[in-house]
């Protein structure tokens, strides 16, 4: 089981005449493997989120391929690609992460409801456990629009975990969180990797390096793997 990108490129035009092309992602290769936490670091606007969106089947690359177990996911029809997102990928997006008009519980169960799995055995217990673990058990019936940034982030993480996906793709999962919660979330992500999931984390946060197995650096759309990374030192990493 592997999710990989092969020389994916994504470009945009900065003016309406479609000249002045700039590359958000320029020929990126990355492989996500079960049991491993991959971390992409890089400064804002370097293309990290764009790459993650391409890996999760949300943004069609202009060049290159995204392969899940050797199969190009963008060759799949919309229904199948959506089914992949529902069943194989757990997304923790940045920005609009929850539906504001739904309660925390409704938001959590939404992806499962799309699959008709919301009443499956164990879902209730797992939801309760995760809510308690991340310290938001009392917010179950609160509308998402009434939550703070950190609370929203934690709900969004639980939602991604509830679907028991093969790959967890987290965009800045520790932003808006205090030190204690950062530690809780990172432990949770590491645990998910130990249980056989492939985890990709995009972050500015140096703390994330504590759970990192494979480290990538993104700069101006170009992805570079830090080959010498073994969790030994932070000195080689330029995380601006």
């Amino acid at each position, binding site marked *: 089981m592997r999710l990989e990108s092969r020389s994916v490129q994504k470009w945009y035009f900065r003016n309406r005449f479609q000249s002045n092309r700039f590359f958000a992602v320029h020929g990126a290769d990355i492989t996500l493997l079960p049991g491993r936490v991959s971390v992409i670091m890089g400064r804002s606007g370097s293309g990290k*989120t*764009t790459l993650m*969106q*391409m890996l*999760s089947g*949300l*943004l*069609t690359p202009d060049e290159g391929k995204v392969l899940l177990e050797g199969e190009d996911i963008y060759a799949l029809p*919309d*229904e199948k690609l*959506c*089914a*992949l*997102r*529902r*069943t194989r990928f757990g*997304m923790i*997006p*940045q*920005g*609009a*992460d*929850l*539906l*504001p*008009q*739904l309660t925390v*519980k*409704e938001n959590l*169960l*939404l*992806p*499962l*409801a*799309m*699959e008709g799995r*919301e009443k499956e055995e164990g879902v209730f217990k797992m939801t309760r456990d995760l809510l308690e673990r991340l310290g938001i058990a009392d917010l179950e019936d609160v*509308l998402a629009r009434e939550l703070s940034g950190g609370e929203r982030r934690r709900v969004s993480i639980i*939602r991604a975990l509830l679907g028991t996906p093969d790959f967890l793709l987290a965009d800045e999962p520790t932003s808006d969180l205090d030190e204690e919660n950062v530690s809780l979330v990172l432990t949770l992500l590491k645990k998910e990797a130990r249980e056989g999931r492939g985890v990709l984390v995009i972050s500015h946060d140096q703390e994330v390096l504590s759970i990192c197995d494979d480290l990538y650096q993104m700069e101006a759309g170009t992805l570079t793997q830090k080959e010498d990374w073994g969790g030994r030192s932070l000195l080689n990493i330029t995380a601006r």
Partner: protein
Amino acid sequence: MNLKKLPLLNLKRNPGRTLALVLLTAVLSFSIFGGTVVVSSLRRGLGSLTERLGADIIVVPSQAQSKVSFQDIFLQGTVGAFYMSRENLTRTLEVEGVEKAAAQVFLASLKADCCSIRIQVIGIDPETDFVIRPWLEKSGSRGLKDMDVVVGTKVGAEVGETLRIYEERCHVAGKLAPTGTGLDSAVYCNMSTMKKLLSAAEAKGISHKVSSDDEDVVSAIYVKVKEGYDIGKVNSAIQGHTRKASAIRTRSMITDVSSSLLAISRVILGLIGAIWGMGFLLLFLAFAMIARERQQEFALLRVLGSTKKALKGLIRKEAFLCCLSGGFVGIGLACLLVFPFQTLIEMSLSLPYLIPEPSGLFLIALGALGASVASGFASSAFAAWRLSQADPGRLLRQG
């Protein structure tokens, strides 16, 4: 959490937005239902008028043209009376081409102690009448005994009650079905009762005599022309053969009403069109703006694995629920205006006005609901298409 409930939850938890959409659709259904009911009532009124006239020519005293005209009594229920000699009935029957002729006698009651209400009394001869009798029979009124009256639907008296007209007590023997014309405000009796009432009125100083020695009078003569005869020529012949009388072709009366109806219908239909067009444009803009406001929400749904088809379905279902509720609200509001103010509408239009039967109203309501829902679907289609086509990654990046 059930995904099928998502559209309902979206609407319920955004009451301001939902209310705006419901009200916009309500404007559409209000104009469609209200306008159609008014136009249908006018058309039905014209149909009823044509049916009730049932004659080709009506002969009335010449003075009726200047006094309270026959048309006013017939269309608007104006209370009045005019007389000519009964001799004109015999003279009319003598004209070649006349198949049958039936006389009516009018009497206006007073708003005084002698009378229960001010009302138009119409005396008919059940033996020869071919205009009112079929209507009486259709309404289940069997014959008219002496001192019995049958009342129009708008007369405030019920079967079994007694109406006092010039101190004479008349028994209400039946109530007629509505016609939408002035006839709904009249009461009907036989000629023998009418003679008694005329004498009683005479005693109160209301004279019906056309001359000192002519007490046998009529107010209108309804004429049916034989098949194959030219109605215009027969009309001229009657005009020449009768005295102090005018012969009116009923077609000209209907044509007048029909032209007014056509003009009013055009105005109402034009208004419906304009309101509908404006409402549709506003709905279109509202859906487009809401779609723009909610693009992050839809992008998130795509992130979570919602298909384009499911997203379109979600928008359509929300539009359907809003428009259906708006449709009901609009129809309800139109009902509150069209039915309680029916008499006011009728009076201001001065035309026969007969509200459709419940089955007809149901069909109009169904049509208005259908049109509202279809408008909602059509106006939200563009927003649904645009949202489903948008790249979720790009939308999330914009957030």
